[in-house]
């Protein structure tokens, strides 16, 4: 299977040189080929698996359990202004 490595890299926001892309292309194809073997299994009459554990989802009561920890949570952010995260301009 042929993979557009640069497109995948762009979607994942990873910058690759052409050399790296050339090297990764065959590796990714190998991985996909390996997984594609699953397609040969006969799954007629087998329900799709949504999750490996056959557990239903636990639900949470609608009660506030978190308090304001802004200062601590914003520690790792590179830039803050009046409590707002500052990021490079997003053009709409």
């Amino acid at each position, binding site marked *: 299977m042929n993979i557009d490595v640069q497109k995948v890299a762009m979607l994942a926001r990873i910058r690759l040189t052409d050399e790296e892309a050339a090297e990764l292309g065959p590796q990714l194809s190998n991985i996909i080929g390996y997984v594609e073997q699953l397609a040969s299994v006969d799954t007629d009459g087998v329900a799709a698996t949504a*999750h490996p554990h056959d*557990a*239903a*989802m636990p*639900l*949470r009561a609608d009660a506030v359990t978190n308090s304001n920890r*802004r200062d601590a*949570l914003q520690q790792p952010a590179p830039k803050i202004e009046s*409590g707002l995260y500052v990021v490079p301009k*997003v053009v709409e």
Partner: protein
Amino acid sequence: MSWETVIGLEVHCQLNTKTKAFCGCSTAFGAEPNTQTCPVCLGMPGQLPVLNKVAVEKTILTGLAINAKINLESKFDRKNYFYPDLPKGYQISQFAVPIVEGGYIDIPTKDGGEKRLGVTRIHMEEDAGKSMHEGLDAVSHIDLNRSGIPLMEIVSEPDMRSADEAVAYLKQLHQIIRFLGVSDADMEKGQFRCDANISVRRPGEPFGTRTEMKNMNSFRHIKQAIEFEVLRQIEIIEDGGKVIQETRLWDSVKNESRSMRGKEEAHDYRYFPEPDLPPLRVTQEEVDQLKAGMPELPAQLRHRFEAEYGLSAYDADVLTQTRELADWYEALVAAHPADPKRCANWMANELLGRLKEANQELHDSKVTPARLAALLDRLADNTISGKAAKDVLDAMMDSDDSADAIIEAKGLKQVSDTGAIDALIAEVMAANPAQVESYRAGKEKLMGFFVGQVMKASRGTANPGLVNQRLKALLKG
């Protein structure tokens, strides 16, 4: 040859849960930026989402209200894209198996009938944060208080054929959601947001290429934006061009839309099953229980008001616009049960009109159902005339005094005492001998003149029916 418009709508509606979809952060509106966040809704590594039970229940209720099928097992998926207001780099949504599928909403048509519009699905997802660009140069500001607030995305079939039908559908949906109490659905606060997929075609032909219109935050903008887009597409095609499938942003200041091209190319969401969440299972018993506790819906309420209180379709519609209006009306009828139609007239025409003029909300008004009922009692027992009742209502708008106290203070009590009225008539006749003569000579049109004079002499308090009756008798001579 004519063109046919085809519209499908996607509505994002914020559920009014106390906490976010997957964490225990508050959803209260208007908090200081980033004070309602935690490692889960900030997308920090190693955190796991746990779904809010009430969000599930509210989505099921909405599904039941639009006559849809509730999937007892549904699944969550990741929708992947990069944007600074989406800290995880993906939005948890339901792609393959949504919780609600296949419902409908009936809208009234101009000929008095109804048109059924299909709802494809409702799925649960989480909201993104808020980006702010205004007044900033090279940067944007991000507030993540909204990140993770539960949303329903309600997707319609492409069943609408005009901007008016699209707006009618949205108004019905908005009203249903408000009646259910599952969302505050305040459009100005972005709690009820609509995207429209719009295309045109020759009647009978396959669908044309559609564009998606975003950024319309009132019913009026939605109508304008759709009408603008339909004309734009028709012009392109009639000039020999082709409509490009793209997303467009409505600019409500310039009254035009502009292309969002550029952002489009990156739209490759690579949905895959959310590994952090097992399937969502609900039982039929739980669904039935929610159904049993479902409040009366707008359409049911309208029909009941017409049948039970004998209201016109118009009054029933006005008085069921919100749950609050309907409850107020029923409280008024309970306090003045003699005449539900009089209650409807005075509430819909007199009270709501005055509130609108004074820019007041019903729940802020000094006029309560009990106070208005006391006034209507005085009208019913002929203590005051209809005109005087309007004056009393005017006074009640800014006074805590009872209707009786106002009637007393303003001397509005209707004079229904024959002796007193006869005395007034005698005065008027004495002051206008020439008119009396003409009347007696056969000029009966002068009756109106005499009624007016007597009413004036009584400063509006004479009972007009009685004045008429006594005048006829006394003018005969």
